[in-house]
């Protein structure tokens, strides 16, 4: 999975919000099914994010004018270049 497409923070707080809503028990059935599904999807997504094992390392490179780019960075090759 690439970098987080949505914020983990938002996903987690929405998940908690959904749990609280469901626990309050005063939702129409249809609404509860809808947010239950959303909650399950969020929890799956969060777990996926947590299970990611590799961190992406990039280098900030300033270009002409006000532009910049992010280059993949390999620490080993940086060391050899030294």
């Amino acid at each position: 999975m690439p970098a987080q497409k949505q914020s983990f923070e938002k996903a987690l707080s929405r998940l908690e919000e959904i749990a609280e809503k469901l626990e309050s028990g005063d939702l129409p059935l249809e609404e509860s099914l809808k947010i239950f599904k959303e909650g399950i999807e969020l929890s799956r997504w969060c777990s996926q994010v947590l299970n990611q094992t590799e961190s992406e390392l990039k280098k900030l490179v300033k270009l002409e004018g006000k532009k910049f780019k992010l280059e993949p960075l390999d620490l080993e090759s940086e060391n050899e270049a030294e």
Partner: protein
Amino acid sequence: MEQYTSQVKIYTVWELTQEIKSTLEQTFPALWVEGEISNLSQPFSGHVYFTLKDESAQIRCVLWRNIAEYLPFQIEDGQHVIVLAKLSVYEKQGQYQLYVEDLHPVGIGKLELAFQQLKEKLYNEGLFDERHKQPIPKFPQRIGIVTSPTGAAIRDILKITRRRFPAVELILRPVRVQGEGAAEEIVQAIAEFNQFRVVDVLIVGRGGGSLEDLWAFNEEKVARAIFVSRIPIVSAVGHEIDFTIVDFVADLRAPTPSAAVEMILPDRKELAKEIRNVSRRLVSAQHSLIDSYRQRLKSVLTSYGLKRPADILLQNRQRLDELIRQISIAAANLLQHAQQKFSTSVGRLNALSPLAVLERGYSVCYKLPEKKIVKIASSLKLKDELEVLLWKGKVHSQVTAIYPE
């Protein structure tokens, strides 16, 4: 007077001054002098003039700008210093003075002094105030790093990130972290991150080293760059015991680069536990919700409220049947009654008809010619002509006898 002048060498002021100067310079090649600074003046030229003194004597000193610029600390009146200097003469004023090549504070390192001075200055300016500290985001997605690409810091940061919360992007802006120009590069890197706004938080730092090695992180320009950064900055310089100016001005101080990552990133194991908990809550809440709906449905289905409409329907149907039956009866009665009434009427009509009376043998007698019904015998005379109406047919007759009563 005349004779003296012919025997004795007479110096010009300049010649004598030159003599003194060369004597002084040769006698005292380079020397270390300890004393206290007073009468400090630093005109616009950038050269520094002061007097070095102790309890009983004083000597003028000059510090040229090109040397003064490289002193990390500020020279101040009252400072106790040792100077490395050459003794010479300022010819114009006939004044011997020390030309200072280097200057060290006494009882404290140069850099320590510089550190203390800058710390005090920036503190007084409010750069370290809590109110300027920006909050560190709880779940950063991109972390900017200002450090050397070859140092231990970036390796440690990468390692801890992979362990703690790998789903982040690390973006390095490589800089030199020590030596000439390091401070400028760090300032530039912080500025670029602020310009491009690609990260949520910045780590600025390097691994451990001597005070000299860490010096870039004690420079005023670096401190000011961190102060104006709109991206929150975590300082991570050296080892736990090392404190730099950057640590005071940063939004958060981490004792080491590894610790910086631990302070910034949440622990994924903790988070996984939390997610599991919330998911469990989610499922059990949904179960009990559905259960409660099932219960409600059940109780609603068996409730009087729901049964009532069916009941009403049945009752109405029955009532309807009843009404239909009643109406039928009524209608039948009505009909029968009408028929009865009709036959009665017909009967009565029959009974009243004179023809019916005639049928039973009666006859009607009219007196002619007026054709008046005769009811009383005495109203007739002999020879009156009569018409007698029978059930079938009539006869014409004449009165031949009258018998009244």
